[in-house]
């Protein structure tokens, strides 16, 4: 059984998979892991080749769009130690096409699909739970701390939705930001973040939302457990309606 190593980057991972699929007779028999340069590490290191990584993704997208989408979501989760499963998944996806996602009795497929699902779920959740605040200069800012690295697809979602506004998304832990202004979307990192001043009416609007949030709930039916399972507490930090409770 052959073992391979790569440099730990996303491009490195995909170029390694691409290389193995071409060179190995039975890719489902080999392992792939991140190179840590430890004493007992064994394996052949595959070098990173960004265009090759990209081309693998596009070939998969043509062959099995659903499976490519799963791969994309899986990468958002930034999950380590699952490289071998991913390799087997991609190999099976080229073999079976999109039907592969139904092959849940296969452990590698189940693992990859589950992680991808988790990332997809968080992305969907954040489309609802993200909160913008209006700043003094009229722009809007939303801060977040998601588990997965979803700022790209999330910003794309809002670029179709809040088109007439000037807005920013900021991933506090990763220090990455997205900006939408006049029809163009940009991404970058922010090293020193200082919270800008809010617009004058911001607190008033927030108070209205808090009032609505309170009265829309049926008083004799409090169900904090159901609320928390639908809306885990880790997301409450930036929720206007959950402040000062």
């Amino acid at each position: 059984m052959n073992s391979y190593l790569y440099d730990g980057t996303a491009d490195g991972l995909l170029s390694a998979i691409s290389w193995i699929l071409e060179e190995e007779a039975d890719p489902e028999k080999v392992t792939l892991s991140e190179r840590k340069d430890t004493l007992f590490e064994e394996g052949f290191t595959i070098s990173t080749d960004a265009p090759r990584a990209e081309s693998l993704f596009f070939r998969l997208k043509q062959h099995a769009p659903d499976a490519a989408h799963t791969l994309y979501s899986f990468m958002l989760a930034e999950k380590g130690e699952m490289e071998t499963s991913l390799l087997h998944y991609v190999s099976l996806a080229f073999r079976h096409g999109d039907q592969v996602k139904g092959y849940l009795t296969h452990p590698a497929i189940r693992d990859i699909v589950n992680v991808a699902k988790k990332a997809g779920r968080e992305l969907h959740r954040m489309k609802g739970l993200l909160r913008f605040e209006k700043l003094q200069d009229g722009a809007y800012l939303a801060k977040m701390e998601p588990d997965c690295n979803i700022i790209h697809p999330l910003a794309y979602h809002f670029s179709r939705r809040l088109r007439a506004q000037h807005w920013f998304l900021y991933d506090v832990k990763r220090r990455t930001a997205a900006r939408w202004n006049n029809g163009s979307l940009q991404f970058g990192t922010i090293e020193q973040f200082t919270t800008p001043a809010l617009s004058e009416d911001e607190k008033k609007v927030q108070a209205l939302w808090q009032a609505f949030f309170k009265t829309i709930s049926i008083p004799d039916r409090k169900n904090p457990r159901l609320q928390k399972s639908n809306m885990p507490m880790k997301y409450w930090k930036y929720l206007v309606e959950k402040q000062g409770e």
Partner: protein
Amino acid sequence: MDTKAKLQILSGAARYDASCASSGSRREGPSSGTGNTSTSGICHSWADDGRCISLLKILLSNDCIYDCAYCVNRSTNPVERASFTAREVIDLTLEFYRRNYIEGLFLSSAVMQSPDHTMERMVRVAETLRTEEQFGGYIHMKIIPGCSSELVRKAGLYADRISVNIELPSQASLQRLAPQKHKHAILEPMALIGREIATSLVERKVCRHAPRFAPAGQSTQMIIGASPENDFQILRLSQGLYKKMNLKRVYYSAYVPVTADNRLPALAAPPLRREHRLYQADWLLRFYGFSAEEILSDEAPHLDESFDPKTAWALRHPEFFPVEVNRADYATLLRVPGIGVVSAKRIVAARRFSPITPEGLKKIGVVIKRAKYFIICSGRSSEKPDQSPTVIRQRLLLGAGGETAVSAHPEQLVLPGLFA
């Protein structure tokens, strides 16, 4: 009265409406405006009662001239009254939407002055949002029974979903409990909406730019337990609404007494279990290929208290089981108690690769707690074969897969339609 005080009264009065869905419509936002809609719908928060908040759900006014026995807003009940101006509703919607609090607006109202007067003001809100403000988000509007068909048509052009509450399951009950509302004033707009939706779909096939009419469809709501109709009557009514009027959804709300009135039954508790069973039966109608006549009959017109309607059907039809999961087609799998749409799809997808064993079923995430009495897997069964329905019934009731308590399905936390 300031906007916040109004908001408290008029969202408090709207909270008992069952529907909050923001799904079923897909609109690209106008480039100079605000908002779009997505097919799957998005929840923006969950209230303290655990229900999803997706729309700014409010009444335009709770100042009602009607006197429906079951409703807090009826004219003879001394509650504080409030009415929004159109501008207030528009500003709230936009400010909330820009901050991503909501998917859009759900606007209903009590009857102010007259049905036409009320509907006109509601339509004006939607019209201003769509045209002047270029709002592309979701709008759900209630139709006030008795308003002109011109206003119904206009509402459908601006809203994603429109709905007319049927209120009570029969004309006799309507006459007794909501004497100012007439059956034809409810059914006529429903039929009109159904026709307009169908026409618009046809026209849009020919021309992409033909106007859309309520693209997310039409829904309705009825109160359960305030009047004497049985479950069979109710299910047949729903079946008719789905088939003949093209409804997307029928919502049921267990009657909760808000005041003593000798026209209303005295209930110890709202019939939540019954409401729950009706929702389950409704699912069987819409997604599982069952008919009302398969679920109930004139001889047995009530849904089983202890079993969900699918299990009850299965126990009456032992000849249908056991089902071999490796061979049964999708429709047959759906008839197995405990196997839902997701599980049935997973089974169909997984057996392409290799026959499914009982262990394999668990691996793909199919819960067999209840299903195990009704299936075999590659010829094997995890239960003794040939159990009689009586035995299965007992085992299910003993907790081995039976339902012991009413699960708190979020959409059931519903009180009567407190408004038109």
